[in-house]
């Protein structure tokens, strides 16, 4: 179960990372924004994004979980969830 506070904190950080990588204004981004379809992410962007997420949240994102990250909302939910779990580092 992901708390509201943690979700909001993660959402703010995820939006900041995405805004920097895609050079967008944070106000343009919502939970429904689709990373590939709406932001036009290509393979280089995806890897950059994953590297930035791992660096920002200090958690690993394995291959098999990447396809879950379709929208910003999916990403926030996923990261908030792995942050709630004990670190595997």
């Amino acid at each position: 179960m992901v708390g509201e506070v943690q979700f909001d904190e993660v959402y703010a950080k995820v939006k900041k990372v995405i805004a920097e990588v895609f050079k967008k204004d944070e106000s343009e981004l919502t939970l429904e924004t689709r990373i590939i379809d709406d932001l036009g992410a290509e393979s280089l962007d995806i890897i950059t994004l994953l590297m930035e997420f791992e660096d920002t949240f200090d958690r690993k994102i394995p291959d098999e979980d990447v396809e879950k990250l379709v929208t910003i909302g999916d990403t926030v939910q996923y990261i908030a969830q792995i942050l709630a779990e004990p670190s595997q580092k």
Partner: protein
Amino acid sequence: MNLFRISVFEFGCGQGTSLVRQRPASECRMPLLWIVVPGSHLDHKRLTFVVEKTILPQEKLLQAHASDFVCEMNDLSKTEGDAASHVLGMLPHRFPFVFIDRVLELLPGERIVALKNISTDEGFLRGHSPQNGSMPSGLLIEGMAQAGGVLVFASLPDEMHGTPVFFMAIDHVQVTRFPVPGDQVIFSVSFLKKSSWAVKFAASATINGSQVCEAELTATFGRKTGKKV
């Protein structure tokens, strides 16, 4: 028996710690020496050594040779040439596309310093402004990237050995001078970011202590294992 962090230097190249600079010039052509810095031991087994003494006094350290330490791994030779070719052998590149002659310093997980001597018979001089032959900036960046490649390979955990690494992006590049024959280019590369997906480096090239190129380089892994570098 304590574990220490090891840096590898070649004397006479103007790089390294104050220990190197303290040495008289007459001793600056010694074979490769292992300089011991107290700290946690390195994860990478090929560069992990066990020192038999708790702390070496500084005088002893200045004169220490590889033979003073017990090398745990057989595949890293104690001779300069073999050690240099060992680390350069981590790269998939081969002649004529290797732009590092020697690794001067390698701290897995942290940084690398490598050199390239520019000679008059470099293949690129024949076609790159033949009248005023110089090393093209693209190859200067390639040299920094290859140094970064050695750093990544030396930093990979055991489970990721053999993973291909691809040069992915270059940012904030600045080239202020093209190396010419006779120049010795020193590449310095250190990690900015590490993740299981990609790594980012700060890289620079200097000649006679003056920076001639700087850039941020990003490399990604050819297959994923989800292991953090």
